[in-house]
């Protein structure tokens, strides 16, 4: 099934990259909702929908004033940010391990200086 073809209508907006507002509206405002204790409530959909309104407004404003650069490839940058955090996290853990090892070595020696 081909799902990407645009229509043959002269009034089609097609699937332009700037139809982000349409995508947001559909994935945030439609779709099956699950409630109850089987879901992890990570995203507050009501707040997100509220934010969606602001975004839809700002997407249009941003486009008008040409400030839509963040729409182009922000996920890559956010992933890069996550990777950066992961690396930092690992480095911190390594340093912590090293410190703990040194501390243990010290407590094992009863004549070591301790305050």
């Amino acid at each position, binding site marked *: *099934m*081909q*799902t*990407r*073809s645009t*229509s*043959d*209508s*002269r*009034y*089609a*907006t097609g699937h332009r990259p700037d*139809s*982000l507002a*349409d*995508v*947001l*509206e*559909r*994935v*945030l*405002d*439609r*779709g*099956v*909702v*699950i*409630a*109850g*204790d*089987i*879901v*992890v409530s*990570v*995203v*507050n*959909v009501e*707040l*997100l929908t*509220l*934010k969606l*309104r*602001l*975004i*839809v407004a*700002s*997407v249009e404003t941003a486009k008008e004033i040409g400030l839509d650069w*963040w*729409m182009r*490839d*922000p*996920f890559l*940058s*956010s*992933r890069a940010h*996550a990777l950066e955090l992961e690396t930092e996290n690992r480095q911190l853990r390594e340093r912590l391990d090293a410190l703990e090892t040194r501390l243990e070595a010290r407590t094992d020696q009863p004549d070591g200086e301790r305050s």
Partner: protein
Amino acid sequence: VTPARGLYLYASVPHDAQLGGVRGITGEPVEILRHARLGLVLGEVVVEMLTGLEDESADPGVLGALARCHDEVVRAAWAAAGAVLPFRLGTVLVDRDAARRYLDDRAEELCPAMQQVTACREWGVTVHDRATELRAHADPNAALDPGRPGTAYLARRRQEMARAEARRETMSCVEGELRARATDVAAGRHRKPDVVLDESYLVRRDAEPALFETVDRCGDLLLEQGLHLELSGPWPPYSFVPRGG
């Protein structure tokens, strides 16, 4: 400390659907969990990656990218399975047992809904009011008789009312024609005040040529009255899923 993990849901698909090589919102491999005559397209994610999206300080670009990625996976599943019922962005289940329990509980309403959307695609139609712009150009007769401003005003008012009436008639005619092409109709949110129509149509693929023909004809009609029609799609059937958790 291992970070909390959960199962991020993209869509339900028919039981026999196959999907390969698709990556999800956090780059995780996307799989299908099969149970109770249905499949759930999902990926294991670190829950933390999704928190705080709604915060004021959160980068709207991240949400935008997430939305696009969610849509991409839903579309990939759609292309592979032939039919999908998409989940709303941010739906995370606690574990596989929860996923199976969900299908046990909901298969009865998901299966007929899946049946309904099979062989159909969703199309969005919005109509914007551009009449005010048009009027600015097309109303020089407002100053026809400077000596009788009252008469000119009344004439203008009459003209405006006649125009509004004509537009109402055209709009209801257009609405009827578009709906006649659809298996089902869902109302949109009219997100801006100049939007006079915002609907989604579930249309059988074999009825699409007729839809496009109708859209073109109606679009021309509306344009004459300063109303601008836009067709978006094809969309996975986001607007035609069972309601209620």
